[in-house]
């Protein structure tokens, strides 16, 4: 499955990062690359790989 990263920038200049097709550590490494641009307000592990779904909300 192709590893696709979609970054969406809203009209306020905030953004979201959506990863699909990643396995294991590679997922977190990509997320980490974008972390320095702002502060995470929500992180969700998507369920399509039967992972436990977690919601982390940070100020």
């Amino acid at each position: 499955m192709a590893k696709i990263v979609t970054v969406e920038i809203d009209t306020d200049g905030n953004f979201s990062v959506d990863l699909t097709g990643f396995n294991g550590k590679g997922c977190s490494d990509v997320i980490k690359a974008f972390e320095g641009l702002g502060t995470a307000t929500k992180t969700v592990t998507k369920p399509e790989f039967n992972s436990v779904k977690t919601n982390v909300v940070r100020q």
Partner: protein
Amino acid sequence: MSKYTEQQTEFKDADLLVASLTAMGFTPQLHATAQQLTGYQGDKRADVAEIIIPRSQVGFASNDIGFKRNASGAYGAIISAFDSSTYDATWMKKLKATYCETGVMRQAKRAGLTFTGKKTVNGKQQLQFVKA
């Protein structure tokens, strides 16, 4: 696994902020230590900032615009009341979006991602990348 994360953009990177202001048509000054801003009459103001847009670039009878590093490490804008009518919330949103897009492209490259395209969906800019 795959992940989804929402981020609130903050001006944390001086070089990136300078690049974004440059992309918006300014030639900002970057100082290692915060410098006093200059007012429209050439007067030195009490406000200090590390990144300064000289008043000559801001507008007629305008004051310097500054971006000062705060305790959290992010840069906050210092804009005079006179200039805030032009450099308002809309302008700040545009700067944030420019900073965000410039930063995303830079960080994607560093992460080894390949840019595959950009489109507008419901008023939002979508940038897509693939990882080999």
